[in-house]
């Protein structure tokens, strides 16, 4: 994780990791999850779903399980769950 100033207690804080799930057939390719992921985890993939929408895909393992993609997605097509520590 990148910090502009490393918190003093950064060693003690347990940073959660997330696993992103994408329900491909619901996605309409708006790209909001890609644009607004604070960790820039998502990118447009090379694949399209059955309706021809351009899907996002997970590009790095930096997901912190903040759920913002899940909250912003208008399609109920993406969500994250906590990874096993």
């Amino acid at each position, binding site marked *: 994780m990148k910090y502009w100033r490393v918190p003093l207690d950064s060693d003690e804080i347990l940073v959660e*990791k*997330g*696993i*992103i*799930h*994408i*329900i*491909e*057939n*619901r996605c*309409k*390719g*708006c*790209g*909001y999850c890609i*644009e*607004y992921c604070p960790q820039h985890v998502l990118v447009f993939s090379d694949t399209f779903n059955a*309706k021809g*929408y351009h899907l996002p*895909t*997970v*590009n*790095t*393992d930096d*997901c912190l399980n903040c759920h*913002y993609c*899940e*909250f*912003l*997605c*208008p*399609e*109920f*097509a993406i*969500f994250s769950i906590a*990874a096993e520590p």
Partner: protein
Amino acid sequence: MPSVNKTFQADKHPLEDLLRVDRLPHIWCPGCGIGSVFSACLRSIKNSGIDYNNFAMVSGIGCSGRGAGYINIDSFHTTHGRAIPFATGIKLANPDINVIVFSGDGDLCAIGGNHLIHAARRNMDITVICVNNLIYGMTGGQVAATTPHMYRSSTTAAGNPESPFNLPLLAYAAGATYIARWTMLHSRDVSDAVSEAIGRKGFSFIEVLSPCPINFGRRNKEKSLDTLRMYHEKSIIKNNATPAELDIEYGKSIVLGKFIDIQKPTYSENYSRVHNPNDE
């Protein structure tokens, strides 16, 4: 290669139990923000811990009016503008039900504007979520009572000559006891506002700005991400702001926040106080 690049087709979205999954994908266009607002609303219902059977959702007509069709609780898709009186009937006939009105700006504030102000005046104990996309989306992008001055629509191709409603001011003047405005980008705030509204008694009005890239954005040179960027860059969070200062104007910043949160007896409380004075 990243180790967590997993995409599952069959996994369940956390809100799956509140969705009529057999009706997805919904009708909202790519880039439309109604789904995000709807998602925030569903999250609040889920987080409330209240039995889903004690909720009812009522919508009117229009894009946002389709909301009631996707939530897996008792849900009502009524006539244009009439979601609030329908909700009023439900609430008065069964005060135990948490009634949420989910509809759009045209439905709630133009054709249904009279019902909005009167429900606010009565402090009817319902939660109104007004998705404001500044346009009539379902019919193809006609000017709305919320379209800012000089913006283009299919019926104001040269620019809107009218002035729009300042919805929080309207709700305030009518007597709403909880008023907030957010954008769909502020999804946690929307969710928090809906949670607060569910948890309190009285008329709650939550305006949520949301992009309509197809019918508003296309005519006003705003791609959906441009609208979201504008929400991000041009919005100022100012809780308790004076409602009169909340106009949405071209090129100016948009004030967001929780503006009003006061306690007043609801219609039902006053009604029983008047008719059964010995009950207390």
